[in-house]
């Protein structure tokens, strides 16, 4: 397997970053952030894998277990991630109620208009 997992994680991180920076639609940006997030999780879990190990559930048949610490960290991160995504989407709905659009440049234009 070598370092292939890490390269794939980096490619996904860059895809997420590109979506966040270049797309104007706010919901698309949130999608890009979630892709970024999942790629970071893959990075950490790949670091915790032990060759020849198994899932960290103690059993008499196995002696080698994969590292449980990254699993715990990423479990927390996944649930916190969905909580932040929910808040971001709620903010997007309120922005839509206030401005009538969720495209970033249209919101900018509405803000710059003399009210």
């Amino acid at each position, binding site marked *: 397997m070598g370092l292939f997992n890490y390269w794939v994680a980096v490619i996904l991180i860059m895809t997420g970053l590109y979506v966040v920076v270049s797309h104007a639609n706010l919901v698309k940006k949130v999608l890009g952030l979630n892709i970024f997030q999942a790629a970071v999780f893959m990075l950490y879990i790949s670091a915790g894998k032990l060759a020849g190990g198994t899932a960290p559930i103690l059993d008499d048949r196995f002696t080698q277990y994969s590292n449980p610490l990254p699993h715990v960290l990423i479990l927390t991160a996944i*649930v916190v991630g969905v909580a932040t995504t929910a808040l971001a989407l709620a903010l997007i709905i309120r922005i839509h*109620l206030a401005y009538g659009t969720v495209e970033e440049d249209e919101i900018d234009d509405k803000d710059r208009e003399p009210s």
Partner: protein
Amino acid sequence: MGHHLVLRVICKLLVPLILLFALYVQFHGDFGPGGGFQAGVLFGAGFILYGIVFGLGHFRSVVSPALLRTVAACGLLLYLLVGVAGMLLGGNYLDYSVLRENPASGQHLGIFLVELGVGLTVSGVMISLFYAFADRRFRE
């Protein structure tokens, strides 16, 4: 009702199985993959499926939003109180070994209660999120 009939029948068959599986995952999290978070999300997903198929009116009569807010708060409160109980019995905050005579069974009880608290909060919050997003009557 006609073209939603298949969805409604399947939903009625599936929702009890999903909720039962969520309970299994909650309490079997010590012996296999699972635990509070997964069980809370599964429990929430079962109710959300019911809400999507049958509409918010029916859903509100089954599970009221006030009940969900109370359940979510109670889950967090349970977690905090387990920690305080550890302090009252002589140990540190969130020290489970002092909850019972035997440290290992104290850990079992502590982990059981703490995972229950986590499951309650996560399921309450997930269904509340669904209510907040799906209710179209909120207008400024």
